[in-house]
């Protein structure tokens, strides 16, 4: 038992440490903010893909869960911790970790509350209800003056950095990949493909859907806290349906049912949006969202399975493909 977990842990810290160090030292501050946003969007897109792509339940309120995570994390570090006398100092990374995990847990609790009644609905109706809940969460936050309401929440300690973001991105991807690869992970896709058959096999489709929802909102909350502690300022207007839509676009472009797809498209689209902003500086025309929308429409009309469909990048590499084959996993 020890060896494999040890290798996992060591590789994790090597990758995070190496990549984090590389990014922090070889990129200028401004491009780093874009890379940070890429990382946050990767977490959002992969987690949403679990619900929308792998489990086939169309949720349109992901930004709402991110908002919960952002505000809970920020509230902890700006209000609760100082109140308890836990200020800046050597233990700060610990506080940040605790706050971020708490943010994820809070978001997943909200996901549970929203998910249980909503996941009884199918297709369009589920989409609308999740959109509604996403908006309600945002309007609710807008009315909580303790966290600034419409004026926003500022002065959030800058605890987030490349190491944390890379770390959480790697964790999210590994978690989701291992989940999907396991026998129990196949249940998500079973629900997507045929709910009646899934039920006839003795599985509760509601429990599976809610489970997906809880995992997804947990990571959305994590992303929210990372976001809050990187940009040090929060405003409810960030977490509108607009943002949910951007994440949906990433999931669809990458391929609903492909983790690699979500990773690649999250990075691509975040970068695209940034390049378009530069274009806007030159031409004065804000084409960003127009192009986003056109990309989505074009995708649906020409290649609805997105870039990767339901396949992973590793499927294209013969070595990995053979490892994945049925026989290999047994011997």
């Amino acid at each position, binding site marked *: 038992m020890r060896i494999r977990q040890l290798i996992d842990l060591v590789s994790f810290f090597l990758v995070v440490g190496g990549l984090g160090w590389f990014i922090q030292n070889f990129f200028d501050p401004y491009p780093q903010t874009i890379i940070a946003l890429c990382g946050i969007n990767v977490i959002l897109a992969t987690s949403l893909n679990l619900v929308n792509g792998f489990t086939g339940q169309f949720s349109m309120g992901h930004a709402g869960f991110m908002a919960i995570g952002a505000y809970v994390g920020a509230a902890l570090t700006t209000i609760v911790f100082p109140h308890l006398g836990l200020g800046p100092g050597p233990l700060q990374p610990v506080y940040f970790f605790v706050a971020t995990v708490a943010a994820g847990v809070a978001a997943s609790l909200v996901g549970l509350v929203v998910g249980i009644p909503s996941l009884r609905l199918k297709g*369009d109706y589920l989409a609308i209800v999740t959109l*509604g809940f996403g908006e309600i969460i945002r309007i609710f936050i807008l009315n909580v003056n303790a966290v600034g309401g419409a004026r926003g929440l500022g002065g959030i300690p800058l605890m987030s950095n490349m190491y944390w973001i890379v770390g959480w991105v790697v964790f999210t991807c590994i978690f989701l990949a291992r989940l999907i690869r396991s026998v129990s992970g196949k249940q998500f896709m079973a629900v997507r493909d045929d709910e009646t058959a899934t039920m006839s096999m003795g599985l509760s489709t509601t429990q599976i859907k809610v489970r997906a929802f809880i995992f997804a909102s947990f990571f959305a909350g994590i992303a929210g806290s990372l976001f809050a502690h990187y940009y040090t300022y929060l405003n409810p207007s960030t977490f509108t349906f607009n943002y949910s*839509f951007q994440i949906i676009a990433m999931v*669809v472009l990458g391929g609903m049912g492909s983790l690699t797809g979500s990773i690649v498209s999250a990075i691509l689209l975040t970068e695209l949006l940034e390049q378009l902003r530069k274009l806007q500086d030159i031409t004065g*025309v804000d084409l960003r969202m127009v192009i986003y929308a056109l990309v*989505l429409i074009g995708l649906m009309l020409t290649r609805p399975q997105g870039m990767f469909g339901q396949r992973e990048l590793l499927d294209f590499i013969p070595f990995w493909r053979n490892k994945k084959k049925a026989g290999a996993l047994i011997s």
Partner: protein
Amino acid sequence: MGEFFQHIINGVSLGSVYALIAIGYSMVYGILQLINFAHGEVVMLGAVFGFYAAPIIGGRPVHPSLALFFSVLLVAMALCGLVGFTIERLAYRPLRKAPRLNCLITAIGVSLFLQYFTQLDFVFGAIPQSYPEMISQATVLDLGGLHISNLQVIVLALSFSLMAGLQWIVYRTKLGKGMRAVSESTDIAALLGVPVNRVVSFTFVLGSVLAAAAGTLVATSYPKVDALMGALLGLKAFVAAVLGGIGNLPGAVLGGLMMGLAEEFTVGYLSSSFRDAIAFAILIVVLLFRPSGLLGRTVVEKV
């Protein structure tokens, strides 16, 4: 007490506009099982087209005149009908056989595209503009504290005549019969020789025409036009359609009126900051407790 009846009048007036828009959602859902997210944007375009048409037809500066109002209305309706037709042709028809999810995503895409495209400076711009005044506000009736303005009379009269016209089309014309057939079953209707494509196009045009009227009425009543006005209006009207039973036309009208009254009473007796929230609340309650709406039917899935 008088205040109560005032709220009723205001609510019905607002509700009839919601009804006009809700009908569009219900018609499209009835025949295609598609939530036309872009419908709200067509409402917005109705106002935008009117904004540009008014000075062109009536000269600058725009002088209030009923004739001008109706000409602008007709122009807006014609242009929006064209927009609706185009959207269906380009974005929805190719996906007729695709999974419903793809259509949903496309509809969202079209909606956002229209919003952001209109916001571009060379189109309309991101800043709200004032809709030209074509009807000078005047109180038509003043009954012991109860005010009914001429604007409200026009809103009610126009809405209900349009709805009556629609009723006639759906139940007395061949295309209307086709609409009813397609909403029962697209395949069977096609087998029976109903020109499905034409019926679908016609439905979109009809819905868009009504949307244009709604947009014009809204812009005339609250003279602000902006590229994002369709989003909220569309959402509230959609909730109205769901409330009444999506796919059900009388339901859409009923839902619209109820939404208008609910909003009016919320603002009047609770607080104006809940004006928009009440729509979401109703949406969630309906979808969680009675997704088929008040007049809709529950469909049993055949295994």
